[in-house]
């Protein structure tokens, strides 16, 4: 009976998960090589050469990796810090409800809020104007569509940080870290030592696969960098969509090249994560 259910589960996983993914990947690969596509005329590696030589992909990949990294460092860092400081208070119902709220917001809404608050015509700009800190709209600093991706990072953090805060609070409880802390204290550890050697390592050890998966998720984020990013460099998903929608139909394949490279890299990262986790389990 159990095997039957397992088989049905596997079938659903194959039909809904693996098969569409594999078919899309094969389609993208064929498109990138000019083998399918109405505007393509047969096998060519021209599109691959174009993308690899132009440097735009590398730049975009580097930019995406950097944005996602900074956002994760801040999100996890702030969440850890808040957990250590307030883990008791946050368990309170109202506060945890307030933390769940940002999780329910889609990326596009968060990005829209960021525009409302941070743009040159946004709330901050207006307040600064009212209190006389700026005399002109142009004087307000660029916080969105800016060179350093400030708006993107801030919005990423506002979306991701509450998730990790809730996660850490949960782990704090289930792993009974508070009890371990008092045990360590009674054995003579200093508070600093407890945090560095017990609390933080335990929290991170239990959650790092999620941290890594969230990093991959941010790497491929679309709406937030689309609305808050600039025209160059663009984050990967924005670049892919731009290439797919371009005016010159003979170059649409370049979008598929980027999509294929991105998919391969992310798959390798996920497999690496999964396999390493498995080996740790066997070792442990």
């Amino acid at each position, binding site marked *: 009976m159990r095997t039957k259910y397992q088989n049905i589960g596997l079938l659903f996983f194959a039909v809904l998960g693996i098969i569409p993914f594999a078919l899309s990947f094969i389609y993208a690969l064929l498109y990138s090589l000019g083998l399918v596509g109405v*505007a393509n005329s047969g096998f060519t590696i021209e599109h691959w050469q174009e993308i690899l030589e132009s440097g735009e992909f590398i730049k975009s990949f580097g930019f995406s990796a950097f944005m996602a990294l900074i956002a994760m460092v801040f999100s996890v860092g702030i969440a850890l810090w808040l957990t250590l400081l307030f883990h008791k208070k946050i368990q309170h119902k109202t506060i945890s409800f307030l933390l769940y709220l940002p999780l329910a917001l889609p990326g596009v809404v968060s990005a829209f809020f960021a525009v409302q608050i941070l743009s040159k015509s946004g709330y901050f700009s207006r307040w600064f104007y009212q209190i006389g800190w700026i005399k002109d709209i142009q004087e307000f600093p660029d916080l969105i*569509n800016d060179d350093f991706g400030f708006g993107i990072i801030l919005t990423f953090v506002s979306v991701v940080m509450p998730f990790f805060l809730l996660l850490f609070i949960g782990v704090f409880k289930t792993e009974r870290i508070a009890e371990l802390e008092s045990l360590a204290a009674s054995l003579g550890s200093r508070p600093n030592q407890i945090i560095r050697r017990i609390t933080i390592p335990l929290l991170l050890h239990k959650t790092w696969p999620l941290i890594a998966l969230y990093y991959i998720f941010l790497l491929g984020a679309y709406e937030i960098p689309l609305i808050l990013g600039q*025209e160059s460099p663009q984050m990967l998903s924005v670049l892919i969509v731009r290439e797919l929608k371009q005016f010159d139909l003979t170059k649409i394949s370049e979008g598929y090249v980027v999509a294929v490279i991105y998919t391969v890299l992310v798959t390798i990262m996920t497999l690496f994560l999964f396999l390493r986790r498995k080996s740790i389990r066997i070792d442990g």
Partner: protein
Amino acid sequence: MKKNIWYILLVFSLWSACQSSQEKPSLDLSNTEWSAIVEQAKGSDLHFMMWQGSPEINHYILEFVKPRLKANYDIELNVIGGQGPEIVQLMMGEKQANVESGQVDMVWINGETFFQLRQIQGLWGPFVESLPNAQYVDFEDPFISIDFQQPVNYMECPWTISQFAMVYDSAKISNPPTNLDELKTYVQEYPGTFTISNDFSGMTLLKSFLAEISGSSQGLNGPFNEDNYLEWSGKLWDFIEEIRPYLWKAGSTFPKEQTKMDQMFANGEIYLGFGFGEGAIDDKIHQGLFPNTTRAYPWANGTIKNTNYLGIAYNAPNKEAALVAINYMLSPEAQLQKADPKGMDANTVLDIDQLPDEWKTKFQNITRREYGISMNDMKEYAIQEPDPRYMIRLYEDFRKYIIEN
């Protein structure tokens, strides 16, 4: 178990194959009376893919065209949101999958999309000559019969004609620039208040600049010329490089779309803008978005004037309904309503001289725009859309030499 999976997949693929092969017999316009087409269209659902970014245009289609198509012809008009790239992507996908009965019957396109759809043979036709209301259109007018330097050949039906114009806030600037030299002086005087959007509108502006550099408003006419392009565009990039420090955000980035520029114009971040529909400022002033000191004006060497069109998808399931709807949208009644400056404010493509007297008077009595400039006033500044390859190269090179540099 494995066997079962393959069986399900087989059934599924057979089912989807059957789905795409149910098609009505193809329509032969040369042997069909118009009345038979109208009869055939009765009771059908018509799927119209159009850009839905303007409340006025949506209002016109949903509140004026849709109820009349239902009442007069028993056609149910369904609007699907989507513009240029989405239309092209959809049709490329359907072509690829050999879908014989597509999702969309009718599309609203401009020259950019017409050029792309022509490459993939995504349009059905020629059909325009068969429309009874086509008799009021002057097909000798090159701005109607030639799209991006290519003859339209009755494959798409003209719907609206408009010209690109510059836009400025007269409360902030007294003498807006009308040529590149003046633009240089302007940006130095008002740094950070001008930019170029990286989209169709921005590239249209660059085409005007390129024509000015060529030394004539007709400089870009004819087939694409590589040598000329390289010479003129080189000068254009040098010019933009020179004024870059004085552009919005010191030219470190450029807005993705013209709508973003409109927002920046509305909140006073930039003082100088541009747009089709002779600048399209009246509706924005009426909405309270633009200040009522906004004015539109021509560029001295001229700006692009072009027409946008209605087309029928190569695999449209209801071609008859599309024909009837397009004919209605070309009628004097529908075109007059569309020209209302307080509504969609879009110039008619009909030749007023060819209309029956009753309609001629109605068109002549249309109230003038309150703030914007009329296409008639811009007549001597009209430039034809150049060969699409100019646009392709401008897109590529603007990114390569300016945005990424």
